[in-house]
C-alpha cells in the first residue's frame, strides 16, 4: 500500500486541535497501519517537513510574519493542505484582536496590564512581528480541505484522514461539522 506522509504545524492557536488529533488514540495506530506516516509535527518536534509530504495540516490562524512564512513553506512542501480548527479555517477567536490597532494591543498587553511592573514591549528579532490583522489560512495560501470546530472532534479528524487514505474526497456532514 502507498504510504501517505503527513506533517503539521501550529500557528496562532491553542494546541487544542493537536490535542484532538492525539485524541484519536488507538485509531491513530489503525491509520498508521493503513499507511499513514507522521513526518514533521509539533508532536515529533521536527520543524521542516520532507519535500514529498502528501498532507500538511495547519492549526491556528496567521497572525505574524513567521506564520505567513511557515504556511507558505507548508504549501510548497505538501500536496494537500488541511486547515483544522476554527482559527485556521475562519480566523477564529484570535481575530478578536482585529478590532484593536497592533500598537495599542501591545501596549495594553505588555505595559498597561494591572499586574505589570516596568513592562516593556519585546523587541527580539527572533520574535515574529504581528500582522495588522489576523487572517484565516485560506487568505494567505490555497487550502484544499477544511475541518472547522473548536476544537474539531477526533472523529472529524479521523474521518478526513481515513477518507484520504481510502482514496476518497473527504466531506464533513452531520455531527462531524461543528463550529464550536
Amino acid at each position, binding site marked *: 500500500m502507498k504510504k501517505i506522509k503527513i506533517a503539521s504545524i501550529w500557528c496562532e492557536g491553542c494546541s487544542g486541535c493537536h490535542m484532538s488529533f492525539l485524541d484519536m488514540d488507538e485509531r491513530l495506530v489503525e491509520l498508521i497501519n493503513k499507511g499513514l506516516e507522521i513526518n514533521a509535527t509539533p508532536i515529533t518536534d521536527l520543524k521542516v517537513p520532507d519535500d514529498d509530504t502528501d498532507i500538511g495540516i495547519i492549526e491556528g490562524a496567521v497572525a505574524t510574519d513567521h506564520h505567513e512564512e511557515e504556511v507558505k513553506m507548508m504549501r510548497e512542501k505538501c500536496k494537500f493542505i488541511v486547515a483544522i480548527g*476554527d482559527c485556521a*479555517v475562519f*480566523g477564529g477567536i484570535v*481575530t478578536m484582536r482585529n478590532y484593536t490597532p497592533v500598537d495599542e494591543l501591545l501596549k495594553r498587553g505588555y505595559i498597561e496590564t494591572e499586574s505589570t511592573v516596568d513592562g516593556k514591549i519585546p523587541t527580539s528579532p527572533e520574535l515574529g512581528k504581528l500582522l495588522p490583522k489576523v487572517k484565516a489560512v485560506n487568505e494567505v495560501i490555497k487550502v484544499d480541505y477544511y475541518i472547522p470546530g473548536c476544537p474539531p472532534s477526533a472523529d472529524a479528524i479521523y474521518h478526513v484522514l481515513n477518507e484520504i487514505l481510502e482514496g476518497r474526497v473527504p466531506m464533513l456532514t452531520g455531527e462531524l461539522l461543528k463550529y*464550536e
Partner: protein
Amino acid sequence: MEKIKIKINGQEVEAEPGKTVLQIAKEMNLHIPTLCYFEPLLPQGSCRLCIVEDRGKLVTSCTTQVAPNMDVKLDTPDVVTSRKLILQLLFTERNHYCMYCEASGNCELQKLGYEFGLDHFEFETYERKFSVDNSHNYIVIDPNRCVLCRRCVRACSQLAGHNVLGEMNRGIDTMIIADMDIPLGESSCTSCGLCVQVCPTGAITDKRSSYFGKDVQTEVINSNCDQCPIGCGVKVYKRKGSNFIVKIYGDFDKENEGILCKLGRYGALFEEKPRLTSPKIRDDSQDRKIDFDEAIRIMSEKIKDAVIYVDGTLFNEELSLIKKVFKDRVFSLYENEPPIKSDVTIDDIKKANNFIVIGVDLNREYGVIGSFIKRKASAGNGKITTFDNNFNSLATVSENVFGLEELEKGLEELKNLESPIVIYKKLSKKNVEILSKYKNLRFFHLPFETNSIGLLKENIKHKIEKSKNIIFIGKNPEGLKEILDDSFTIALTPYEIEMANKFNLLIPIKDGFEKEGTFYNIDGKIVKKERVLESKFESFDLRTIFEELNKVKSL
C-alpha cells in the same frame, strides 16, 4: 375562490390564491431553508435564502404569491449555488464566529451553515466593529451578530405593537435602532422581550439567560403566567437536572400569540423579592425564628375567633380549601366586583377596531392587552381614546386624550364610533352612570388581581373590619394597614413583606414556580400554572398547614 394550478418540483398542486410559494411547499412537506421568515410575522424577503426557481427566474418563495402557470423548482443547481453564496455573504458580513457567541447551539444561521456544509469562508471577513448596546436592564443588543433579518423590528411593531425598534441607513451600513437611534435603555422600550425571542442569532440576547443553558440543555414546561389575570401562555425553560429557570418565552400557540410583558418575561426571574425562609414570631418588638410546630401551636390558639383575609394571588385550590375550613369568616382584602361587568373577551379585543381606555396605562400593566390594541392603532385599523388624569403612555398612540372628568364630553364626541370596547379597571360611581347611558359601548374589565374572578366564584366578599385576631393569606397585605394595630395578626405569605413588623406571626408558604394551581383568567377560563422548581428552603403549602393545625386543635 378558484384555486390556482401550479407545479412544484414537477408535481401539480392546486393552491389557494394569495398563499405564497413557501406556504404551499410547507403544506407539501417540502423543505425550503429560511432565515428572515418567521411564521406569525409578515414575510419580508430580506435574507434571500428561500429563493426558488420559477421558469428560469430566481424568486424569494416567502414573498412570492402563487400565480397561474408557475413551474417552481426548489433545488436546481442554480438555486443551490445561489443559496450557498448568500449564506457565505451572510456569514462574512459581520462577526459570525460561533465559538464566542451566546447563541451558538441555538443559532439559526449556524444551523443553516451546517445544513449547507459550509466549512470555510470564501470571502474576507468584515472587520468593522459596532458598539454593543448594554444600556437596557434586561436586553443586550450586539449589532456585530446581526444578519439584518428585521424579525425584531417586525415583531416589535406587527405583533407587540410597541414600534420601538426600527432600522437606519442602507445596505451593509444598516443598523437596528431603538426610537431615533438612542440607547435601548433610554428608549420607549416596554421590556416585553419579544425581540429576544424572535432573534435568530446572538444579536439580541437577554442578560439573565445568556450562557446559562442552550436549548438542548433545557427542558420546556408549558405553563401560564400568573402575574396578572390575562394568564398568558408561557414556555418555561428549565435547566435539565438543575433547580434553575433559564428563561421564559411566550407561547405562540396560545391566546397571547407569543407576546408577554415585562412582568411575565422578566419580572418573575429578575426581581426576586427576599423570601421568608422560616416561621417568625415578633415579641418584645423583636423578630425571632421559631420552628414550624411552634408556629402551628401559636396559630391554633388564635384561630378560633380570627377573621381571615385573602388576596387574589391565591389559586382556586387554595381558595376553596380556605373557604372549606373557615367558611363565612373569609374575606377578600380588595374589591374585586367589577364596576361594570365585561361583555367581551380577549378574542373580541383582537377583532375590534375602536377602544376607549379609562384610567389605566396598558404599557405598564396588562401589557399584552396594550399590545393587542396598540398594534391595531399603528397598523391604521384601530382607534384608541384615552381618559386619564395621570401620565398615560398610551397617549402617544391615542387619537384623542381626555381627563377622567371629561368622560361625558369625550363619549359624546365618540358617539358615532362602531361599538367601541371600553377597557377599565376602576371607575367612579359617576362615571359608571355616564357609561351606562351609552348603548353602543362594549365593556372589558381588567380584574384587580390575578385570581379576582376566582374570589368572586368562591363567593369571597370584600370587607375590612377590626378583629382581635387576624390571619392574612397571600402576598399583598397593604389593604390591612389601617386595622392591624390592636390585633394579633398572622400572615401566611411567601415574602419578607415590607409590613412584616406589623405582624405578630409569619409563616412562609410556597410561591411562584414552586407551586402549581389553577386560576380564572380575564375571560373566566380556568388556566393552570405548572410547578417548575423545588423549594430552596422549608416552606409549606396551605394544605399541610391546615392539616397540622387540625391535629393540634379542631378547626
